């Protein structure tokens, strides 16, 4: 670009977004961001008006996770900015590259408790990877480039740029030079693999433990090659689902609190655990000192701070997974261990022969998984339906399963699906939600209507906050507290009011036809699936228990 005519700060923002390949942003206008929304009119960036700033931030997260690009969201000062925070916290916890732009009151009014003034810069410290406040328009171009660079560099994450209104209006002559500005990048040492090689060659019962870092490192091919070449049994975290080949007979599925019995028993018995882009999260480990108690650990990660944070690594390997994992890829002689793994996989396979005429949610999700087109992207909310989706649906890539893993944010699924659909207009996007979760960002049905976004919504409805109800039944003596949602709205009428096609099913015999109707429908669709309020997610590792002490029934 050679155009160096003066721009406003708002105009410069969109020029820089275009430089970074941003075609779509999600946001909501307001007083302190009006100059930016004025400049939007003349830009080539397409804006999607969400109906709550939290929806905008989750759509940016979904956009980023489905596409691998940076998601961008915008909001005004004060409540607009604070409404972004949950989405930013979610992006930080799950390491998602997002750039959030907030309007701020004019610099002269800052610190005076002005109308819609909040110190979003201060609030951002705990929920972003980094943040900026631009106090002069001359800083704006450099800051915006830095924001994109920081969001994508190393362990990815959200960056907030707070821009006062007078800075948005001021005139500036842009340079259009996108040079690297990060002076203090962490230098990682060259990987020392000798210890890891020694552990690997002596292991008799190794397990490959795959996390969300694999997808973010674009190392899916390397991980699958490692699993295939070594023949090593493998397990996945919630965020790692899709990284491994689900047809591999040595793949055991998800581990942890709601992991498969085979995965948890195998990890408990292993003598070597190779953690790849995973961080020994508490929902994975259960009681930490009894997690893989006899195993040595090889830990691959890009983030120095994850090494030895919760489990000491006997052989830490920092750096780029794509470069480092092939260094350990070799055939292993572990036939006895493989035979035991395959036997467990067979013995503890999921069963779908649920008694009665009522609908069994795991069977519905399994059938959707079997029927959905290739490269379908599934998002979820948080709760029982989320765990059933993780257990019973198969994904061929991590960016085809978007779920709020670390933060566990109800309200994530619908706006994330909107973002995913905008980034991948030709793929089927399904959001699996619950009757509690969907109400958390239900206003985004209006966004679906406005842009005719063909998201398919599978609403698993037990008229309860099901996961909390399950825990109250199991661990609080059945004392149910504020988990009954019997007064839910009529979800089909709600969908119709947003011109969304819909159907309710209550019996097993209706499931297959309803799924096909939904998948065949051209536009947005809500499939309302009524299930038994007492269905639980099994297995379940109780709190403060080892993973081999899982419960399989009440």
């Amino acid at each position, binding site marked *: 670009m050679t155009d160096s005519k003066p721009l406003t700060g708002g105009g410069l923002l969109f020029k820089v977004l275009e430089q970074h390949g941003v075609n779509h942003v999600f946001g909501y206008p307001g007083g302190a961001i009006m100059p930016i929304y004025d400049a939007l009119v003349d830009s080539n960036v397409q804006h999607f008006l969400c109906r709550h700033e939290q929806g905008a931030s989750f759509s940016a997260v979904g956009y980023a996770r489905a596409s691998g690009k940076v998601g961008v969201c915008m909001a005004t000062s004060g409540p607009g900015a604070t409404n972004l925070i949950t989405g930013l916290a979610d992006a930080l916890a799950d390491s998602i590259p997002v750039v959030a732009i907030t309007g701020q009151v004019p610099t002269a009014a800052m610190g005076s408790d002005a109308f819609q003034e909040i110190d979003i810069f201060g609030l951002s410290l705990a929920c972003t990877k980094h943040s900026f406040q631009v106090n002069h328009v001359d800083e704006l171009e450099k800051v915006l480039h830095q924001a994109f660079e920081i969001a994508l560099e190393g362990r990815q994450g959200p960056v907030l740029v707070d821009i006062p209104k007078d800075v948005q209006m001021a005139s500036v002559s842009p340079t259009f030079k996108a040079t690297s500005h990060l002076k203090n990048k962490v230098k990682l040492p060259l990987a020392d693999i000798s210890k890891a090689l020694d552990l690997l060659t002596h292991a008799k019962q190794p397990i490959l433990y795959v996390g969300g870092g694999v997808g973010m490192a674009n190392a899916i091919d390397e991980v699958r090659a490692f699993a295939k070449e070594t023949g090593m049994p493998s397990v996945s975290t919630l965020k790692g689902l899709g990284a491994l080949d689900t047809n591999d007979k040595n793949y055991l599925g998800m581990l942890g609190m709601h992991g498969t019995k085979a995965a948890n028993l195998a990890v408990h018995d292993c003598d070597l655990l190779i953690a790849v882009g995973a961080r020994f999260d508490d929902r994975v480990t259960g009681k930490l000192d009894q997690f893989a108690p006899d195993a040595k650990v090889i830990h691959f990660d890009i983030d*120095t*701070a994850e090494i030895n944070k919760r489990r000491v690594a006997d052989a830490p390997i920092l750096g780029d997974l794509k470069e480092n994992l092939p260094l350990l890829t070799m055939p292993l002689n572990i036939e006895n261990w493989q035979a035991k793994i395959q036997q467990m996989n067979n013995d503890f396979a999921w069963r779908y022969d649920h008694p009665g005429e009522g609908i069994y949610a795991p069977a519905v999700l399994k059938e959707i998984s079997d029927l959905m087109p290739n490269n379908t992207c599934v998002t979820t909310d948080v709760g029982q339906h989320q765990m059933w989706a993780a257990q019973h649906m198969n994904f061929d890539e991590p960016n085809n399963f978007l779920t709020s893993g670390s933060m566990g944010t109800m309200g994530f699924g619908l706006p994330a699906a909107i973002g995913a659909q905008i980034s991948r207009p030709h793929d089927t996007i399904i959001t699996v939600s619950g009757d509690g979760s969907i109400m958390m960002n239900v206003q985004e049905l209006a966004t679906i209507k406005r842009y005719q976004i063909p998201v398919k919504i599978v609403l698993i409805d037990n008229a309860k906050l099901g996961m909390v109800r399950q825990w109250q039944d199991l661990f609080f003596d059945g004392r149910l507290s504020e988990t009954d949602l019997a007064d839910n709205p009529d979800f089909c009428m709600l969908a119709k009011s947003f011109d969304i096609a819909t159907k309710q099913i209550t019996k097993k015999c209706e499931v297959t036809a309803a799924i096909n109707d939904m998948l065949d429908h051209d536009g947005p669709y809500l499939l309302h699936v009524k299930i038994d309020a007492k269905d639980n997610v099994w297995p379940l590792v109780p709190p403060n228990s080892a993973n081999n002490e899982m419960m399989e029934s009440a």
Partner: protein
Amino acid sequence: MNTLTMNNYTLIIMVDDKQVVLERILQVTRYRGFLINGITAKVNTGNNVATIELFVSSDRPISLLIDQINKLVDIKSVKVDNKASQLSKAKECSA
């Protein structure tokens, strides 16, 4: 009353003199489970580099805090001043 083994550490942190860098360090220190016992900070206006001496205590390994502070964008270096740090000093607390 629990008795935790609290260790005292002195960190020497070199930073680019950027907006809220001190707040960022204090936030990370608190969140990661370290008590702040004292702090000195001075900016070299010639090169816009600030040197921060941070006196902290915790029952957690200091490497956890060093790794987290190192991740902050404006940090140039973090070191433990071994001479000033006191390990294994028992302290009662009411956690």
